[in-house]
């Protein structure tokens, strides 16, 4: 499939490859320097490797009004988005990628309506904590498929992507390298550790890196909270509600707070950053996604705070509605970026390993 975006990305990447001044900023430029020609799969790989730190844009001598009109962060954001739509499964959902904001709003309304209606219609006669408002069985009936089905769709999409970028058999060492890179967000370090050029033109700052990690680790903690609750429920016959000093709460509380801080920070940075250095058509959708993350965390914390309060019922429905929206849209929203990013980091580790091997062969 020949995309204008891919063509334009290729044109700009070839300029970068003849320049190479930006090699120190992130993994994208050393990856460019390895090649002379760039197939569509290579463009998709580079696009998903790019973290949109924008260091290269402000350092570039060829940005508009120069005739070469290089704006690599933007064209890679567009190519990245294109690659997600191209590989998404089932194909029929691909148009969602162009309507993130609308999709989030529509699914949110439907999810909230569904949860409220079910909570109203199937309110349990007994139950403690939030189980007083909705039974465990009903929650599992809704969320088990809402969690598993999108992950299956995402797995199929990622498999298609992995083939397109030429990835080999996934290796543990490459996964480890990708986890370390994502865990530190090395590609947002600017190469010198002072961060990226996001919210204030060419000033380096770690704000975006830190807020992003707050969301990432906050989300993982929340996920751990839910998982530990499931283990306690099924493994130890210890159903919710849990006291403060229990695994679900010890994971969930800091997780929720981190997510709130991180998402609020990211949203604030987004209002300050130059929209022309990302995918301009996606700004609202990306903002909607960040706010959805905030809503998931904030309603979760509010629900905990409102235990045994009359507001707990509506808050539970609000919380479950936002979580359901997040889950359902995972393969077709900004949420997918984390999975594609991990794939790109793994593929990059694989490619670097191959270069190292061929170097070793030469010196042997």
């Amino acid at each position, binding site marked *: 499939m020949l995309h204008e975006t891919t063509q334009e990305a290729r044109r700009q990447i070839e300029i970068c490859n003849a320049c190479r001044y930006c*090699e120190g900023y992130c993994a994208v430029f050393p990856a460019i320097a390895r090649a002379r020609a760039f197939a569509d799969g290579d463009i998709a790989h580079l696009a998903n490797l790019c973290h949109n730190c924008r260091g290269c844009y402000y350092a570039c001598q060829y940005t508009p009004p120069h005739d070469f009109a290089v704006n690599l962060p933007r064209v890679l954001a567009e190519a990245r988005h294109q690659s997600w739509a191209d590989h998404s499964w089932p194909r029929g959902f691909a148009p969602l990628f162009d309507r993130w904001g609308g999709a989030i709003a529509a699914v949110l309304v439907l999810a909230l309506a569904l949860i409220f209606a079910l909570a109203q219609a199937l309110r349990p006669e007994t139950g403690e904590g939030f189980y007083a408002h909705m039974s465990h069985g009903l929650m599992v009936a809704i969320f088990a498929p809402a969690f598993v089905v999108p992950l299956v769709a995402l797995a199929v999409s990622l498999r298609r992507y992995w083939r397109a970028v030429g990835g080999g058999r996934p290796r543990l060492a490459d996964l480890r390298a990708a986890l370390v890179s994502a865990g530190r967000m090395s590609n947002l370090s600017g190469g010198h550790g002072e961060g990226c050029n996001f919210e204030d033109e060419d000033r380096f700052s770690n704000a975006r890196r830190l807020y992003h990690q707050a969301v990432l680790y906050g989300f993982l903690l929340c996920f751990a909270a839910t998982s530990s609750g499931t283990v306690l429920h099924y493994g130890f016959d210890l159903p919710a509600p849990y006291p403060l000093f229990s695994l679900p709460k010890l994971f969930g509380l800091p997780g929720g707070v981190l997510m709130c801080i991180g998402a609020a920070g990211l949203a604030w940075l987004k209002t300050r950053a130059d929209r022309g250095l990302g995918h301009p058509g996606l700004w609202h959708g990306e903002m909607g996604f960040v706010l959805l993350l905030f809503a998931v965390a904030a309603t979760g914390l509010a629900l905990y705070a409102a235990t045994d309060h009359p507001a707990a019922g509506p808050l539970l429905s609000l919380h479950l509605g936002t979580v359901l929206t997040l889950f359902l849209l995972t393969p077709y929203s900004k949420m997918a970026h984390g999975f594609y990013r991990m794939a790109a980091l793994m593929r990059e580790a694989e490619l670097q390993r191959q270069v190292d091997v061929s170097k070793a062969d030469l010196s042997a």
Partner: protein
Amino acid sequence: MTPDPDILVVGGGNAALCAAITARQADASVLILEAAPKPYRGGNSRHTRNFRCMHAGPMGVLSDSYGEDEYFDDLLKVTGGKTDEALARMTIRRSEECYDWMQAQGVRFQPSLSGTLSLSRTNAFFLGGGKALVNAYYRTAERLGIAVAYDAQVRHLAFADGRIAHVEAEIDGQSRRFTPRAVVVASGGFQADIDWLADAWGPAARNFLIRGTPYNRGVVLRDLLDQGLHSVGDPTQCHAVAIDGRAPQYDGGIVTRLDCVPFSIVVNKDGERFYDEGEDVWPKRYAIWGRLVAAQPDQVGYAIIDAKSLDLFMPSVFPPASADTIGGLAQQLGLPGSELEATVAAFNAACRPGVFHPTERDGLATDGLEPPKTNWARPIDTPPFYGYALRPGVTFTYLGLKVDATARVQGPEGPVDNLWAAGEIMAGSILGQGYLAGFGMTIGTVFGRIAGKEAAAHVA
């Protein structure tokens, strides 16, 4: 509008910024007049990528050591002795302390870029290149309270009674007159003024491309020379390299360079070779080809390679012309087909068997060919064949203001009381001929700092 500053800095590139920051740190009030609009600020510095730095031992990204004598020897080799030894040695010695100072002003370094291993010991590369360096300096300038005016073209520096009495400029189309107590000129050479180049070099210069900023038109330089201030450097010469002939008239920068000459044969528009393409290794060979191509009809050359050599050099920003036959390639490049075929056939017949080694002089020379190709001579016989048009790309001009070791500009009655110069506008004092990679930024940084310090002391 801005009141008169203590020190007016004319220009907005590396040297100007180093002078402005140094002067401001010594408590002088400073105004920078940058001729370019903000997106193009920074003169030719925005196209640079490293500076050449003396160092006694491993320092930051620089490996081993690079001493004063070796550095000076390297300079002697490229200038053929056309340098002021005292000024040159001072510049070299003071380059070492620049490294930390630059970092303190926000410049960040990175290990030498891929394809530039030969410079990893001598040259410190700026992370992100010269525009990132310029950005860092403007950030620092802003933080220190230095005023900056863009689109600010200085028209005249009134020289009277041994000093600059006032400065006339046009800012955003409005005429302005300043009476600063001291002036630092760091406004570059005149290479973007094609008429001036044509006057100096001859009409052939109209076919030259300018690799850097279109804003270095030498207005201030000419104004000062016309008023009798002393010049250095050959007024007729410029530094030119052979670049991709499809580069834009101005500002093509690094990506238009072509490193393929040693693996090619280079012909003129008549399809004839004219010089030994295998004479020497990078970067020496790189610098001579601008001049060689400038001497050919229509100031154009064509580098011809075959499939064997395509991956041996850094990619150019423009794809080469390609064809499965030499005749087909000639047609694409607009060259006479039978002449090019004859040239290639004669070259191929003169190639001898031997071991080809792309990264060092391999002695693989032609036999009985005039002119010979003395290294890397492999037959051009493996399709597809590729061709690049070459044109002279002007990097900088040599004519400049004569300065002393305190960067003070020299006039008919000795040093000008309140005028200092830094960067390309005075580099001819040290670099009279040729070029040494990264030395322009060294001169700009060292003299910018000196000029800023001296000017600040003058107004204190």
